[in-house]
């Protein structure tokens, strides 16, 4: 069943959700990504039925469910702090929706057991809620929400309360779970790495507006605006100007010098922001004429992180972050702070966005 949000608006004191349109196909893992206060949780609560939109409709499989109360929607939620029922044990927590639905007890027994098996806690059945670890509580919350086979499963920052190692493992498990059960998963998160790793598609929100929707790779490589570029991953931003037309390319000038870029949506003449991802910049030990977009720089700081080395370099009077993969670094001469180097990037890796950088 397709979940569709049509022109959803919400106005509340000190907060506004601007018209939002989303269409999420059945079985997709969709992430609502944004900083706190961007409206992602409000949007999730609108889908769950806990808040009513000021305008617009929510429909599921073509049926308008905007005014349905939460208990009439085939939508279940994994709450941020799990909200497990303290007066019931693990089995009864998971069985809750089936008991409410009046399922026969043999079926309840089977489905709860199967579900606990699926989330890998079959032996916790009789455990009291107060005796669960964070990771176990999380699994119980997942099982409780999934056992009723909801069309849509909502997850409100489900991993934020877990320790880092467990969080990484749960990311993979969540994605696998989504494939296995076939429900549509809609997850709210402020962790861009999490969204990139898990989501089939994601929406980036800021100040109640939906800035961009798309698969993680598209959003990362072709961000729609500087905020998205900055939020979805590390970015070097350089205010630039399109200064002319140069045999089919735009001529771009900024503090680093003059460059040629492929023509895209931006117009001439205009001020733009050039965005370079740290991992898309190569760090060269000597000048090389074979490289395009060459800029001289000096190393300010460096930190070795095992899989890569992160440099902070100065070029054109400002600092840049550059990541060098370990495999690349090993082949070359070691660098120390103060070394003169050259930066280079491929024209197609440069992101050009209209407008000036605002921070």
């Amino acid at each position: 069943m397709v979940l569709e949000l049509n022109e959803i608006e919400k106005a509340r004191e000190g907060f506004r959700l601007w018209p939002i349109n989303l269409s999420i196909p059945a079985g997709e893992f969709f992430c609502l990504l944004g900083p706190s206060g961007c409206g992602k949780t409000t949007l999730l609560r609108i889908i769950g039925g806990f808040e009513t939109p000021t305008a617009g409709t929510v429909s599921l499989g073509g049926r308008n469910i905007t005014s349905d109360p939460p208990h009439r929607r085939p939508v279940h939620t994994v709450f941020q702090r799990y909200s497990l029922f303290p007066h019931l044990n693990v089995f009864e927590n998971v069985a809750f929706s089936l008991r409410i639905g009046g399922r026969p007890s043999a079926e309840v027994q089977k489905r709860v057991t199967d579900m606990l098996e699926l989330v890998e806690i079959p032996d916790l059945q009789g455990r009291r809620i107060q005796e669960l670890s964070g990771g176990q509580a999380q699994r119980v919350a997942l099982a409780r929400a999934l056992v009723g086979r909801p069309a849509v499963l909502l997850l409100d920052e489900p991993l934020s309360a877990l320790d880092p190692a467990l969080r990484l493992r749960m990311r993979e498990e969540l994605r696998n779970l989504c494939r296995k059960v076939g429900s549509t998963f809609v997850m709210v998160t402020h962790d861009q790495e999490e969204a990139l790793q898990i989501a089939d598609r994601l929406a980036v929100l800021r100040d109640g507006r939906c800035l961009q929707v798309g698969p993680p790779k598209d959003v990362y490589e072709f961000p729609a605006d500087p905020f998205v570029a900055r939020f979805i991953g590390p970015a070097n931003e350089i205010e630039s100007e399109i200064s002319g037309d140069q045999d089919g390319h735009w001529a771009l000038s900024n503090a680093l010098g003059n460059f040629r870029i492929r023509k895209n949506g931006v117009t001439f003449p205009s001020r733009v922001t050039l965005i370079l991802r740290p991992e898309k910049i190569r760090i060269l030990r000597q000048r090389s004429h074979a490289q395009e977009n060459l800029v001289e720089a000096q190393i300010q700081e460096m930190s070795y992180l095992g899989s890569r080395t992160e440099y902070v370099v100065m070029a054109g009077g400002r600092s840049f972050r550059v990541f060098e993969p370990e495999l690349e670094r090993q082949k070359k001469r070691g660098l120390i702070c103060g070394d003169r180097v050259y930066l280079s990037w491929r024209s197609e890796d440069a992101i050009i966005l209209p407008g000036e950088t605002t921070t």
Partner: protein
Amino acid sequence: MSTTTEAPLLGTVRESPAGGLLARLPVPTWIFLAWLVGMTLVPFAIILGMSFLSKGPGGGWAWEPTLANYARVFQWTYVKVLGKTLWLAATATVSCLLVGFPVAYYLARSRGTRRHVGLVLLFVPFWTNFILRVYGIVSLLGMNGLLNQCLLRLGLIDTPLQLLYTRAGVYLGLVYNYLPFLVVPIFSALEKLDPSLREAAQDLGASRPLTFWRVTLPNIREGVVVGGLFVFIPMLGEYVIPDLLGGAKETFLGNVMVSQFFVVQDWPFGSAIAGLLALCLLGTLLLQALLRTRRGMA
């Protein structure tokens, strides 16, 4: 007091374990224990002891041990009174719950000024003396009372209703006077309840009534039980309200006890009744503790 608490800090190793533990208690605990012993346990021990003595020639007691008082307590007349008293306290507690639960629920759900005003209103009656409050109800319910006057003026009745000196009047007085003791524990239990649990229940398909029944109520059960006991226990010994609002037409255990002490001057028998009441309370509390541990084990 400070010497008793500071001494063990100096580290006297040879102290006996029990003495060490007692001496290690902090000052507030000592105050509480002193109060408990001096004001509750000692008087109760006196009453209990007196219940095994005989009535003195001119009232009071005589040093002749006997079990006659208890034999008398278990006579049919007094057993009937006990039954009636238990029934009155139980039904009045239920009435209190019926009125108090919605009040507690409303207060717990409201925020800001509304909640503050509500809580203050709940306790405003307690700024007046208990006896005055009961007399207030007397003037409200009387033949020429405010209630009858209003009903007559509105033409709803032709002749004044007999409200005062009936069971209904007693119930009204009991519920009115004990209501806050029931509302507060339920209110605080509701307040401590995580509101997201209700959302979770609705999210999983439970309608509002079902959510209340399956999630809210089981989680505040302790508060309801405590609130119920807070009103049930003092109601068992209540004698002023049945006297003033019930017109002393019916005798409850409290009335018997008071008349034994102050009218008949049979202190030992009055003490035996008090002992019986204490037994009832002990039974109630044990029952509650038993249910609690059984739930905990389940």
